[in-house]
């Protein structure tokens, strides 16, 4: 019954989506307003139906309705209720439904918020959204149906992959999907602008907050994914340049580039074609990512089992790329006549360079990710490139980006004068060089880390220096104190100060990555009871094994007493969890985190509970905590940038970006 309700909602929603594609075309041919109005109704109808379908699946999961195959595969009677709900995105079929659900929520919001505005643009925006929605609904209905029944009905289900039974898994996929889907909104506006040929800055200004919101979700999705990897996967790392991680990260690069380059278009009416291309690429990469994940053409720990879904996504991807760039070429004559750069030393050229670097990073990561496919096709040998390739190629690019982060927001538009450069950058440069000197004396002498830390210092100093100048000006002008001056500045220019805070967050993230990449230590050993392993300043003493039966699994813990230079930190107990449904155990690593360093313990084996012998791996990851802290700073910065402070009493308006 639940399955019937869910599946028929999907089918009817698909019909509405198809109507949403056709109606604007009929409307523009016949000139009848009501066809345009019905586009909106089609979106809202889809919203209700897809919500109903998703709710049915959640209901089936919660009530463990094992007559539905998806439920039988992803829950058991013993599964706690919140993991039954998260079973919605535990496997392919459900996660596609979740994607469609988020997409249609966003589309519904667009239809509702712009009810009376952009009369010319909106029908086409909604048509593009309906097209994307129709694709997902068709995939759900015909290629990967989450409501498929199973017979005979099993007594108990198979259960979720135990690695997914973690609180971060509750947030990671929805965040990432919200990021992917969020990019659909600016993409739809861009396409609509191309269709009606009105290529001023309206679509960019309108979608400003959407783009920033999508970017924020993408960033958070990736960070939570890294956190999950570090916290749960138990290998002590947070990023492996795995194809699926790359698939989630790649859209972030053009999205970040877009956030910067649209400011150049708003300000100087330059880069029109470039901005359209960036948003097309960003959107296409979200589809490409799903293709990569679901097709099974590249092996990855994240990959779901293969099926026809991959091919369908590839077809849709080709359709999107051909259609979008075809439309762009068709409208090429509307996009001419942009003024050129006045000077290489200006904010627009800093932003342009930032874009070039981001797109280069995208290109290198893309190439590395699909390299096994290229080599297989061209020379018939499978050649893959691993993490060393990605690290060696992207580190210089990202360092250049860090440098630009210190320059871009402070340098003048059009043409920076020598005075402007001296005023904004002399002191930050001097201060960061002093920093470099201190680090050098403090025995940080490898070139890349030294350069990295110096550039990070430069960014921080240039942001602080610029803000300090502005605060001083307000203090003199209005007699405000430091904090109220800061608050006024941030409220008057939300985008700028929000952006600067986000930059500080990025600085912290890069700091965490640099420290944990450049200075990590790993040791492994098999220890007898009472034996100790010394790693750096730490002394890790084995205190015995303990086995216990848990509700869903059997757990073996090894207790280790950890000392830092003789000072006791306490007992850390990494564990192995044995699930009855699984072939091999799941490790549960533990770590102790401080701002200076993480110590991370992995139990990789043990022999004879009675004999008390354990194989242990210890990792030291300096500065890693700053990476997560940087994520929080980005949350704060994004809130500062998009919070509707100034609209008090005027309602919420998406387009006032501040």
């Amino acid at each position, binding site marked *: 019954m639940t399955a019937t309700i869910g599946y028929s909602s999907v089918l009817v929603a698909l019909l509405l989506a198809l109507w949403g594609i056709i109606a604007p075309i009929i409307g523009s041919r016949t000139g009848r307003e009501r066809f345009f109005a019905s586009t909106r109704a089609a979106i809202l109808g889809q919203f209700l139906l897809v919500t109903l379908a998703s709710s049915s699946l959640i209901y089936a999961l919660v009530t463990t309705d094992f007559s539905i195959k998806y439920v039988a595969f992803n829950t058991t009677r013993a599964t706690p209720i919140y993991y039954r709900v998260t079973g919605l995105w535990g496997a392919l079929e459900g996660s596609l439904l979740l994607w469609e659900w988020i997409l249609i929520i966003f589309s519904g919001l667009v239809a509702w918020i712009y009810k009376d505005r952009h009369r010319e643009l909106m029908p086409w925006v909604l048509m593009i959204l309906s097209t994307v929605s129709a694709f997902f609904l068709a995939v759900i209905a015909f290629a990967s149906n989450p409501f498929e029944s199973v017979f005979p009905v099993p007594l108990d289900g198979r259960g979720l992959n135990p690695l997914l039974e973690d609180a971060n898994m509750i947030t990671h996929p929805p965040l990432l999907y919200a990021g992917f889907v969020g990019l659909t909104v600016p993409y739809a506006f861009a396409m609509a602008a191309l269709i009606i040929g009105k290529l001023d800055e309206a679509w960019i200004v309108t979608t400003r907050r959407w783009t920033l919101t999508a970017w924020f979700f993408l960033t958070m999705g990736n960070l939570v994914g890294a956190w999950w990897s570090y916290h749960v996967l138990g290998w002590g790392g947070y990023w492996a340049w795995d194809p699926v991680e790359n698939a989630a990260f790649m859209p972030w690069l053009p999205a970040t580039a877009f956030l910067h380059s649209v400011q150049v278009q708003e300000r100087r009416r330059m880069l029109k074609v470039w901005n359209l291309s960036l948003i097309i690429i960003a959107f296409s990469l979200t589809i490409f990512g799903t293709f990569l994940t679901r097709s099974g053409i590249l092996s990855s720990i994240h*990959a779901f089992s293969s099926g026809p879904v991959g091919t369908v996504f590839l077809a849709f991807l080709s359709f999107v790329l051909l259609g979008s760039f075809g439309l762009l070429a068709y409208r090429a004559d509307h996009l001419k006549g942009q003024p050129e750069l006045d000077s290489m030393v200006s904010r627009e050229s800093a932003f342009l360079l930032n874009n070039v670097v981001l797109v280069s990073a995208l290109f290198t990561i893309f190439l590395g990710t699909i390299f096994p496919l290229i080599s297989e096709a061209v020379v018939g*040998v499978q050649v893959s490139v691993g993490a060393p*390739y990605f690290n060696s190629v992207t580190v210089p690019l990202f360092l250049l980006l860090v440098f630009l982060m210190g320059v871009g927001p402070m340098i003048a538009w059009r043409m920076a004068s020598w005075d402007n450069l001296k005023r904004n950058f002399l002191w930050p440069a001097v201060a960061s060089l002093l920093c470099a000197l201190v680090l050098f004396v403090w025995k940080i002498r490898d070139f890349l880390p030294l350069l990295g830390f110096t550039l990070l210092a430069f960014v921080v100093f240039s942001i602080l220096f610029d803000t300090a100048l502005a605060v001083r000006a307000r203090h003199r002008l209005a007699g405000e104190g430091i904090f109220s001056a800061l608050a006024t500045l941030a409220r008057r220019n939300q985008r700028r100060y929000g952006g600067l805070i986000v930059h500080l967050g990025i600085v912290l993230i890069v700091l965490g990555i640099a420290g944990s990449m450049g200075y990590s230590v790993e040791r492994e050993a098999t220890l007898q009871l009472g034996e100790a392993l010394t790693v750096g300043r730490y002394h890790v003493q084995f205190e015995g094994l303990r086995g216990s039966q848990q509700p869903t699994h*059997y757990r*073996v813990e090894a207790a280790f007493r950890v000392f830092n230079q003789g000072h006791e930190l306490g007992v850390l107990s990494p564990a192995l969890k*044995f699930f009855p449904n699984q072939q091999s155990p799941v490790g549960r690593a533990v770590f102790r985190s401080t701002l200076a360093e993480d110590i991370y313990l992995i139990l*990789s*084996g*043990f*022999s004879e509970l009675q004999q008390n012998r354990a194989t242990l791996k210890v990792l030291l990851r300096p500065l890693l905590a700053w990476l997560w802290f940087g994520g929080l700073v980005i949350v704060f910065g994004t809130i500062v940038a998009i919070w509707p402070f100034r609209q008090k009493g005027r309602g919420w308006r998406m387009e006032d970006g501040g």
Partner: protein
Amino acid sequence: MTRRRRFVIGGIIIVGALTYLIYGGMRQAMVYFVTPSELKGQETPAKDRFLRMGGMVVMGSLQKDLKNLTYQFQITDGVATIPVHFRGIPPDLFSEGKGAVVEGRIGKDGIFTASTIMAKHAEEYSPPEPGKASYPNSFTPGQEEKRP
């Protein structure tokens, strides 16, 4: 036209730098994927390169020294068999009779010295077998079958 020329020069510099980066990164990190029989064959050009070799761990070939964390075993593709030496901790799913991918170099003595072992993950999770309780008394990576 000087402006145009400047852009062209800038473009060439960027593309050149990027090509250099990619080329350097690839040279350093390219991993050839081979099978044991390809490696036994004479004509493989990849012999002294960093390799990734896939196959099955031969039943009964696994010898391990837990104190020093060294593992010796053989990998086969059904046609040829290559001995492998490894020091470290293999992944949870690594065991005899299962698929594995090893990364490393092959020496002149024909022994493959692996720096990494990757086990083939089973994509589907097997349903529970009735009566198969899970009270592990010991666990060493690669031996999970022996669990009671």
